């Protein structure tokens, strides 16, 4: 029997299928200040956050629409006092709940309460395999040690653990050690995710960008560990865009698989979509999730392949990478509808090459602009 199980490909580009996942940014509050954070620079305030009743309605609408997995994220979702209540509600709807957390602010009691509420999975971030560097990246003294304790509680509670490590210049030399740390912490899955340059990550691009040689060495090291740890830990490897030949299929294609809801209720196809000028994003108060998903102009703006310019339009990869990332096209060319410049065939590819050279040109160490509320 070959290929008994395949990754779910829900629909062709012509028919709009239901979303599989909902990323719920419950809050933008976060104790950490990671300089690669994908949240917008204009972080939403506590006073603007949706209340418990509205979030419950959003999750009910999501389940009815066909969403299967809810990713409870932020900011730091633990900052929401109603987190257990929201997990109970999602579980009652049959939604698969994934807590995406820094672990800061968690106690063993609260974790056990989340587990009993029906939480399905925990994704815990680590910033590095060495404490001093990890705490410097997070902008939070003691974060690394705290996360070790949190991981132990997750395992003790019987919850499956994924460790997420974002890779950049300051920790790329320890990419392999982060896989080993994840194994030691008892994780069944680890994400080794090279930094994507959106939000705060875009602001800090010069400080975060690795050199080409160190990026290639880290990729090779992690790929070797994939074989070494097969059956022990699953490695999901997000390779660095700017050093690639072809763009990533960002979000699996615009408005094709998942949607985001921000703390104040704005419904987006991805984290950075709000940076694109000319698109109007509705909130969960304006319309139902289903109406926004299927009918709103913003969700249909880059759906499928009809919007594509050349060279995407006639490219045989157009249903593989869906033209790459609209927000990246915007950030690098000023026009969201151009081909993602990561692609070697894109007319603006030279712009990516120029940025990817930052490190190799021996630029001085650039200080981080830490994530913070205005």
């Amino acid at each position, binding site marked *: *029997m070959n*290929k*008994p*199980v*395949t*990754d*779910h*490909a*829900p629909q062709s580009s012509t028919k709009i*299928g*239901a979303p*599989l*996942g909902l990323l719920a940014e419950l809050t933008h509050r976060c104790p950490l200040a990671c300089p690669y954070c994908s949240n917008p620079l204009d972080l939403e305030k506590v006073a603007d956050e949706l209340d418990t009743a509205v979030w419950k309605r959003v999750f009910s609408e999501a389940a009815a*629409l*066909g969403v*299967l*997995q809810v*990713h409870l994220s932020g900011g730091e979702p633990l900052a929401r006092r109603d987190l257990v209540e929201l997990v109970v509600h999602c579980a009652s709807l*049959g939604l*698969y709940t*994934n807590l995406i957390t820094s672990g800061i602010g968690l106690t063993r009691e609260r974790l056990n309460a989340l587990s009993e509420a029906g939480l*399905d*999975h925990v*994704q815990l971030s680590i910033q590095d395999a060495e404490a001093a560097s990890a705490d410097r990246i997070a902008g939070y003294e003691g974060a690394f040690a705290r996360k070790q304790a949190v991981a132990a509680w997750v395992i003790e509670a*019987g*919850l*499956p653990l*994924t460790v997420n490590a974002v890779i950049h210049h300051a920790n790329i030399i320890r990419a392999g050690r982060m896989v080993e740390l994840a194994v030691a912490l008892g994780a*069944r*899955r680890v994400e080794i995710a090279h930094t994507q340059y959106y939000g705060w990550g875009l602001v800090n691009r010069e400080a975060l960008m690795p050199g080409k040689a160190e990026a290639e060495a880290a990729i090779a090291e992690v790929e070797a560990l994939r*074989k070494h740890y*097969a*059956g022990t*830990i*699953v490695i*999901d490897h997000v390779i660095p865009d700017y050093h690639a030949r072809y763009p990533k299929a960002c979000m699996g294609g615009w408005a094709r698989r998942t949607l985001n809801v921000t703390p104040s209720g704005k419904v987006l196809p991805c984290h950075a979509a709000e940076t694109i000028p000319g698109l109007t994003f509705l909130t969960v108060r304006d319309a139902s999730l289903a109406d926004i998903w299927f009918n709103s102009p913003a969700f249909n703006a880059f759906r499928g392949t009809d919007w594509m310019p050349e060279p995407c339009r006639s490219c045989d990869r157009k249903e593989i990478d869906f033209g790459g990332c609209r927000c990246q096209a915007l950030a690098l060319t000023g026009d969201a509808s151009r081909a993602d410049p990561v692609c070697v065939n894109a007319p603006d590819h030279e712009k990516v090459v120029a940025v990817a050279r930052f490190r190799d040109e021996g630029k001085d160490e650039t200080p981080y602009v830490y994530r913070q509320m205005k």
Partner: protein
Amino acid sequence: MGVETKIEPTTIPRMPRGVRLKHDETRDEWLLLAPERVVKPNPSAIEILKRCDGKANVSEIVQALAEQFSADPALIERDVRALLNELAAKRMLDL
């Protein structure tokens, strides 16, 4: 790819917490939900996974499927072992 875990007739495959088989009403299909993954098993994989209840061992699963589909147990066993090995390597099933 992946390591071949030794599968005995008495091995009891278990879906760990965080992995579940669900019939999705919206799409009218069986899907396997796992950490940050939704996968669509093929029809024979669905029948095998329905029987991975944490109680039945490999021998019992093979026998039950052979009866259900009036099929050669040797062929069923080959499919079962292939699926269990694949999902164990992806940590979606514990053996």
